[in-house]
């Protein structure tokens, strides 16, 4: 059997195993601490480099060190929405319970990162731009993203029937995905106060390696933090959703 076929089979089987709430619950017990440790390791090292080692910027001085929380938060706010939209689409198309769980549990984490992106951006803009807030294309569209995340969460709790709630919420999540390219390209499509992309641009990152490395480490660390939180929240949701099944009952009664 050729190696590609066996890799594909492995992914296919893993995907289906994770699709079962009970299997997910078992697997996540191992995955969660791994994600947590990866987050701690990467972020601690990234923060150390970003705060102590990276040189100050010639224009912005040490204020630019806010980049090491602002940009990873912003990237995660977009990444999480894409994951949420894909999981929602998978749930709608294949009617997969766990897909809806992933989507719904991603929303509060995505909202938290969006809030952080806006708040840290504001703290950065105040001394450097000269204002705490401006209605330019980038900032406004990121704010819309925060409303979308909030809308997804609110919509879910608006319904009594879980299946309807899941489907309506998934639909909103999928449709809202158009905001993601708008946010990313906003600085190119419209004149704005926010500057253009430093990392994801033609010609490569406009930043030397000693400034870029901590940024990538923090972003990777935050991604594992998202995974950690997602699995924790998903486990809670699975316990709640599957509370009438025997495996949950046995597990809860066994523990004390």
């Amino acid at each position, binding site marked *: 059997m050729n190696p590609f076929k066996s890799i594909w089979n492995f992914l296919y089987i893993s995907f289906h195993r994770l699709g079962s709430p009970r299997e997910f619950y078992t697997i996540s017990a191992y995955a969660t601490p791994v994600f947590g440790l990866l987050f701690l390791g990467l972020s601690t090292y990234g923060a150390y480099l970003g705060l102590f080692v990276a040189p100050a910027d*010639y224009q912005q001085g040490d204020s630019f060190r806010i980049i090491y929380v602002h940009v990873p938060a912003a990237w995660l706010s977009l990444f999480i929405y894409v994951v949420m939209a894909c999981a929602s689409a998978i749930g709608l198309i294949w009617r997969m319970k766990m897909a809806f769980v992933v989507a719904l549990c991603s929303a509060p984490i995505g909202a938290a990162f969006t809030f952080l992106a806006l708040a840290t951006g504001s703290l950065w803009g105040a001394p450097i731009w000269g204002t705490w807030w401006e209605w330019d294309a980038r900032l406004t569209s990121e704010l819309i993203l925060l409303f979308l995340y909030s809308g997804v969460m609110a919509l879910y709790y608006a319904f009594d029937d879980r299946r309807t709630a899941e489907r309506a919420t998934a639909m909103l999540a999928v449709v809202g*995905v*158009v905001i993601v390219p708008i946010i990313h390209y906003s600085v190119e499509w419209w004149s704005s106060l926010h500057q253009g992309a430093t990392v994801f641009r033609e010609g490569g990152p406009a930043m030397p390696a000693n400034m870029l490395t901590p940024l990538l480490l923090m972003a990777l660390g935050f991604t594992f933090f998202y995974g950690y939180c997602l699995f924790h929240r998903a486990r809670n949701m699975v316990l709640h959703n599957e509370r009438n099944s025997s495996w949950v009952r046995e597990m809860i009664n066994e523990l004390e």
Partner: protein
Amino acid sequence: MSPTQKKRLKIIGLIVTGVAIAAFFALRAFQANIEYFLTPAEISAGEFEPGVSYRIAGLVQKGSVSTLADGVTHQFTITDCVDDVVVQYTGILPDLFREGQAIVSLGKLNADKLMIASQVLAKHDENYVPTEAADAMMLAQASKCDNAEGPISY
């Protein structure tokens, strides 16, 4: 994928495409309002209404910064290396304000194309440079227009 699943995928795809197209047209319609600022070229060409608030963006022209007789009002010229606009501002200028810096100023223009600014913000580009490499960069900053072949855009 079963036929039902394919059907669901198509429906979702259609809805997302529909929303994307709607968003495209909506944004196009609001283009003029979404544009964050006018350029000095547009001001010079008279494409503005006196007394209405606008934002303009450009570089601070070398040698154009001065303080007026009252001691608190700053006057400077914003340029895109081809056209200029004179701006007056009473207040504290941002930290980053200096010759060659890109700035955005909000204010009203009078018939002589002079802007009385109510807000002056510094706009910085996407480049990050360590302070060690600074002197060459800082010199280049003030003289950005010397090497410009046409209007610089933001």
